[in-house]
């Protein structure tokens, strides 16, 4: 095993720095986005005959609806259509895992964002005015607001969909070994409760898009979304039309992070478009987005962890409750991923039992959010390790070193996993961080401290779920190398990564490549989530590029008269003997384009030997070192520095890799320090960005991202998707640093400065 604290032995460690960034961006055309010329979902105002839609939301968190009267609204100026539940021709339900969410509620509303009706009008203001003229009679029902009590309260959903007609949507337990026996042999046992918040995605562009009827009963959707193909299937069922009649083109989107995984405005817009025969745009304003949109599952967990006198972890137990809100969305998958991470995948533990219950409440709706249950679990697990170390009187790093898995080990669920570097090397590199040697002063206003945590993240949907995707490469009539995938662009630099990969593999230049994403009539690449896009794209391109290049070379030889052997791809066209002999445009104009196209589809990599795959095969690691400063007078916490050591395969596009880690880390910092959409009786207490506070420029720390890459040259899966990795360990790293600075360990996020101050004051008394 690689010895620690010795920089020379930690091989292949590279810091992503400014030079690497600037070199990679030099060929990319980013001017369009910077100058505001890229059309987002809600920029499509030029459509002729465009109407504006608005959705009526529930006034109650939980109620029966006894009457919905749209007659007054229909008579209002500018109104072209008003629709409600009985206007849904097909299935009045949607949802990725369970279709339990109504397009329009007919009998019952279960959260204050539930949709009841929708209006299409000439202007957005007229649509809003008409909403005010829709009369709804509510009979309020008791609100299920406490997730820990939800199972004892009347069920929010039909008993067919839940466990025995209660609010328990799903429960799951993962176990291994003899837990009681293992606990009996522990020298130190620590037990604590941890709580993580209902975080909001707060993408800068809110939900929105356009539905355009095609005049033949079908609809084209252009909206901000994450899975065009999957959405098209659901929309066809809602509209009551054949699948081929629905087309989705996912537009460039101003951020998603999981919050646009489910359908948002598309059902209402599509129904209004069919009803009026006109294109309809719906764009939620921020108030409505806060109230109705997806959130992260808040989790309350009790963890009990024990080790022997030598620091070996023997026993680990977790009991978690996840509040999924009013509808299932991806809750069951989040539960699974939570538990997967709760088994402490990086560490060897002799026996464990981690169980979780996913419950319905009237507290909004929770679904996919970067990290997907994993980072909530890692917060608790890493905090437990620090407590164990303290109980044993050893350094937190030492406890980790004793228990970290080795590269050849199976994963925590006995599954085959594939790392890109030994966990011990990741730890060693993190311990070498210059942040540890910053001076900590005891006097002065700010109390500083450095702490760290580790985390793992898998790529892919996992657990043997169908997980495949395809792509296509061709030469366009205009002479561009056209690459098509079904994933969406919501700003994750996937376009640049694809361009970079193609340029490297083909030898062309950036401007020769055109990337087309998110068309439901194009290749189906599966959902843009679960950090799966990069792996999938890389795998598909690796498979089709060679034969595509052969086909193109063949045609180029015929057209140019040069022998195939000497023809090479280059910037702008085909080269022979160092000279360009044919531009891509000329080649496109004079040859059969169909023969210069190649497609492929692949299954997302899963462990080769297993029958039923468990967890995820491709694994990534991160160690985050955090430095904080805590205000002695007020308990306010600032994160001044974050240093991440990542083991996530090869870097294709350095700015993309760096940006994903940095962005995810600041999102995790928000979750740790200021972000929580709290509810009171099912009603959100914040409804805009003046009340829900995300980190500003001045809150963001200085960050350093190191890449530790031991991937062999011939590894079949050299790249990983780093979209979620950066959020994994940042919260426990921050609370570890706060403990070093103040002596107080926070177990409830976001850190409440008032509570922290009270603890700090108590510590002062004890001195």
């Amino acid at each position, binding site marked *: 095993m690689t010895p620690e604290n010795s920089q020379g032995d930690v091989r292949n460690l590279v810091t992503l720095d400014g030079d690497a960034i600037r070199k990679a961006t030099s060929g990319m055309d980013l001017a369009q986005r910077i100058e505001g010329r890229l059309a987002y979902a809600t920029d499509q105002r030029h459509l002729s005959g465009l109407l504006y839609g608005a959705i009526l939301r529930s006034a109650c968190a939980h109620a029966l609806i006894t009457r919905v009267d749209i007659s007054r609204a229909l008579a209002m100026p500018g109104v072209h259509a008003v629709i409600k539940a009985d206007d849904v021709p097909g299935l009045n339900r949607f949802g990725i895992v369970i279709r339990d969410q109504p397009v329009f509620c007919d009998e019952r509303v279960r959260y204050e964002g539930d949709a009841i009706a929708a209006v299409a009008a000439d202007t957005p*203001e007229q649509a*809003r*005015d008409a909403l005010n003229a829709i009369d709804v009679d509510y009979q309020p029902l008791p609100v299920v607001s406490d997730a820990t009590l939800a199972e004892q309260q009347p069920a929010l959903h039909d008993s067919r969909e839940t466990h025995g007609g209660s609010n328990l949507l799903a429960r799951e337990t993962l176990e291994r070994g003899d837990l009681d026996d293992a606990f009996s042999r522990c020298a130190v046992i620590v037990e604590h409760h941890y709580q993580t918040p209902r975080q909001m995605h707060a993408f800068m562009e809110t939900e929105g898009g356009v539905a355009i009827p095609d005049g033949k009963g079908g609809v084209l959707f252009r909206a901000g979304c994450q899975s065009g193909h999957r959405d098209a299937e659901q929309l066809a069922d809602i509209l009551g039309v054949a699948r081929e009649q629905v087309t989705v083109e996912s537009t460039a989107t101003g951020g998603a992070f999981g919050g646009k995984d489910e359908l948002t405005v598309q059902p209402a817009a599509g129904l209004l478009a069919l009803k009026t025969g006109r294109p309809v745009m719906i764009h939620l304003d921020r*108030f409505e987005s806060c109230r109705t949109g997806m959130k992260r599952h808040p989790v309350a967990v009790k963890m009990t962890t024990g080790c022997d006198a030598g620091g070996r972890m023997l026993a680990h137990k977790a009991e978690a409750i996840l509040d999924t809100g009013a509808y299932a969305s991806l809750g069951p998958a989040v539960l699974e991923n939570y538990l997967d991470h709760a088994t402490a995948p990086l560490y060897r533990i002799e026996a464990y039992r981690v169980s979780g219950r996913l419950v319905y409440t009237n507290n909004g709706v929770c679904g996919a959010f970067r990290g997907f249950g994993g980072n909530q679990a890692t917060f608790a697990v890493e905090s437990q390790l620090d407590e164990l170390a303290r109980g044993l009187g050893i350094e937190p790093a030492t406890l980790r070193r004793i228990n970290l898995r080795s590269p050849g080990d199976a994963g925590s669920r006995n599954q085959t996993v594939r790392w890109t570097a030994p966990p011990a090397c990741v730890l060693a590199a993190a311990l070498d961080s210059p942040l540890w040697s910053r001076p900590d002063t005891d006097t002065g206003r700010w109390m500083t401290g450095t702490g760290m945590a580790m985390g793992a993240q898998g790529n892919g949907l996992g657990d043997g779920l169908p997980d495949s995707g395809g792509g296509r490469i061709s030469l366009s009539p205009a002479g561009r190398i056209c690459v098509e995938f079904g994933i969406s662009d919501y700003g994750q630099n996937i376009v640049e990564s694809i361009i970079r990969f193609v340029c490297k593999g083909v030898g062309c230049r950036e401007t020769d490549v055109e990337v087309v994403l998110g068309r439901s009539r194009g290749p189906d690449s599966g959902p843009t989530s679960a950090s799966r896009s990069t792996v999938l794209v890389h795998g598909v391109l690796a498979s089709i590029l060679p034969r595509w290049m052969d086909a193109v070379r063949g045609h180029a030889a015929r057209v140019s008269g040069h022998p195939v052997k000497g023809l090479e791809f280059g910037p702008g066209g085909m080269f022979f003997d160092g000279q360009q002999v044919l531009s891509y445009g000329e080649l496109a104009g004079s040859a059969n384009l169909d023969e210069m196209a190649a497609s492929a589809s692949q299954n997302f990599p899963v462990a080769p030997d297993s029958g039923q795959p468990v967890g995820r095969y491709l694994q990534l690691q991160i160690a985050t070192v955090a430095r904080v400063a805590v205000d*002695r*007078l*007020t*308990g*306010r916490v*600032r994160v001044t520095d974050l240093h991440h050591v990542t083991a996530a395969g090869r870097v294709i596009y350095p700015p993309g890799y760096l940006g994903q880690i940095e962005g995810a880390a600041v999102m995790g910092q928000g979750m740790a*320090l*200021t972000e929580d959409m709290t509810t009171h009786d099912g009603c959100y207490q914040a*409804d*805009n960005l*003046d*009340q829900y*506070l995300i*980190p*500003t*420029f*001045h*809150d963001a720390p200085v960050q350093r991202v190191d890449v530790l890459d031991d991937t062999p040259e011939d590894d079949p899966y050299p790249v990983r998707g780093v979209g979620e990795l950066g959020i994994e360990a940042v919260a426990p790293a921050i609370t570890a640093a706060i403990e070093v600075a103040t002596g107080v360990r926070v177990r409830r996020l976001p850190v*409440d*400065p*008032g*509570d922290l*101050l*009270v603890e700090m*004051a108590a510590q002062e008394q004890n001195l």
Partner: protein
Amino acid sequence: MEPVNNEVTERQAVRVMRPESPRQAVSFAKRFRAPYMAGGTWLQPSCERSRQWPAQLVALNPDWPEFRGIQETEAGLSIGALTTLDELASHPLTELYLPQLNGLIKRVAGPGVRHLGTVGGNLLAGGDLSALALALDTDVTVVGGKGSNRQPLVRWLQDRPAGDLLRSVTVPDCRGWGVSLEKLGYRERFSPTRATVACVHDGYQVQLAVCGEGRPGRLMVTEAMLRDEGIRELTDLEIVVDSELETLGWHDPRLRLAVRRMLESGLMEVTRDA
């Protein structure tokens, strides 16, 4: 500010009245019970949130004499109510009289909002400037139904006839005073206020004021104790401060603890060279 008028409407239907003079403005405001609009940085978010707009707004004109700008007068520094927060921060007289104000204003709203938001608007919304204004015994000059008058800010905030228009605020000549100003927010910048604390020492006595999640106010009891008995054991001071804050509507004991500590620190800062 809730529309005092019973009539509410939506944004497109609001009628923006443009009075030609301050007295005309006051007349319109009183007759139609319409709120004033200066920068609108407080009014607009409030109305966007509730989706209720007043049927009329009375637009204020920063070109009216004495409504905008900063000048030295016999009574002290006069600051027009329609002076923007950015103008206040960057004015040379601010640097001369209240150099600490710059550091505070940087943490009030964001730079864009500071180009629109005004001193008067901030004070009337109980914003961050309130604490300093109260601690300095600021006077206000108000245009009312019967003409203009000058009175202490603290009195005007308590008993403000509807429709009276704030023209300017006057702070005493505080050059050389010890002034400690601090805002506690939730994040580094652009944050709602948890508490803003102002400690002022004019060479003779200390004046303390707070604003934020509790009501804005002067800590007169604490001041009296300091004046009469000097700085005593911090624990005695803490009890007095804590109960005075609670009386002012600061119900969160953990926030009171933070405010106490900020006050202690501010006190030490302004009395250090006294």
